């Protein structure tokens, strides 16, 4: 995308740049009026977009089919509106029905879907010995197998981690810490990449680097 030339686009670009600086004035300086201004604008616009986009989706998936003759669509429409009885204390219990449907569908789908990828495939992958076995492959296989077993034991909260349970749960905790360290490393990449994008935008608007 090249640097814009139309007045409205250039104004828009600089507006975005200024709003970015307003937000960054909070960590780089201190909380101030400009930051709160930008923050409130952001939340307001985000909420409005939320409502507009969801309204558009509702019209396309529910209201339009209803008006075209699919009368069954009146059921989810009414149930969805009933969720707003949550705001009226004496009729709050009515909102439990649409929530019950959502919760039931969510749990049913989650429970039936999670068994294969998260349990069966995970266990099979862990216990499948390496076919082409160099020493390092076998070390890795044992590392993962022992590590997984001891890490799962660490989450066994029904019994106190004493006696026979103490060594494996302590070992499991070490494996978990390694996993969390790697997770932290990846989180750093994620957060810094987002900041990198902003640093690049900062320079591009000032024309220090090309867009």
């Amino acid at each position: 995308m090249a640097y814009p030339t139309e007045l409205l686009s250039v104004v828009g670009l600089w507006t975005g740049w200024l709003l970015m600086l307003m937000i960054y004035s909070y960590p780089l300086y201190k909380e101030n009026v400009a930051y709160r201004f930008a923050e409130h604008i952001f939340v307001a616009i985000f909420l409005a977009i939320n409502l507009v986009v969801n309204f558009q989706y509702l019209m396309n998936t529910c209201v339009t089919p209803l008006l075209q003759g699919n009368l069954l669509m009146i059921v989810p429409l009414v149930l969805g509106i009933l969720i707003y009885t949550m705001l009226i204390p004496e009729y709050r219990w009515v909102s439990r029905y649409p929530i019950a449907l959502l919760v039931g569908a969510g749990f049913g789908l989650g429970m039936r879907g999670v068994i294969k990828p998260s349990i069966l495939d995970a266990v099979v992958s862990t216990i499948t010995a390496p076919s082409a076995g160099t020493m390092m492959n076998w070390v890795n296989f044992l590392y993962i197998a022992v590590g997984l077993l001891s890490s799962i034991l660490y989450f066994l909260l029904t019994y106190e981690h004493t006696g026979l349970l103490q060594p494996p749960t302590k070992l499991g905790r070490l494996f978990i810490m390694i996993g969390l360290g790697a997770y932290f490393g990846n989180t750093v990449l994620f957060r810094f990449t987002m900041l990198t994008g902003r640093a690049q935008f900062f320079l591009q608007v000032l024309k220090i680097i090309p867009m």
Partner: protein
Amino acid sequence: MSNILKREAVFAVTGLVTVLMFVEYFFFPQDWIVASTIRNWAVIIYNISLGLGGVRLIQQHVMGTQRRKENWQFSALFLVAFVVMLLTGLAGYLGTGVATSNGIYNWLFVNVYTPLGSTAYAITGFYIFSAAYRAFRARNLDAALMLVAGCFVILSNAPVGEVIWSGIPAIGEWFRFVGQVPGMRAFEVVGALGMIAYGFRALLGKERGFYAGGAEE
């Protein structure tokens, strides 16, 4: 009767819908019209429910403006920005069926929402840096392992790691493909078992936290 409508009947609905999803999975290789219809209804109800948080937020700002609470000017600004964006978006939708066909809505979407959205989330990058400096200490074996794993993964994620030492990418890859797997897979398996256990509790009506006011009764 009133209690049955407020509690038992609600749990029965949850249980019935959950069972229907299971019945479809095990007995119907192609989709089953009953489960498919209920899923479609769930999608629409979910969609409608997304406005609930917005209603609360607007209530709060309207009250703040009316009662001239502290910083009420920002609440007024919030309401003005919200109304402008909402009306222009709806005008665009009613005109062509696509909200961004309205010029003002589209301009605000591209030039205000986009930079603010990117900036607001990117701010956490600053905090992670100062947190890493201030809090990431090798106080004991657990913390030291976490530190070492984190540093190797950080350096192997950046191409500069290989320039510093040719072993860094190899060790980083080991951490990614082997080192972190037991811990992450444990979260995966335990999380899955937890979801199943929690789902059964919801099926049997033992979990009431997500029903409005359910925890109180």
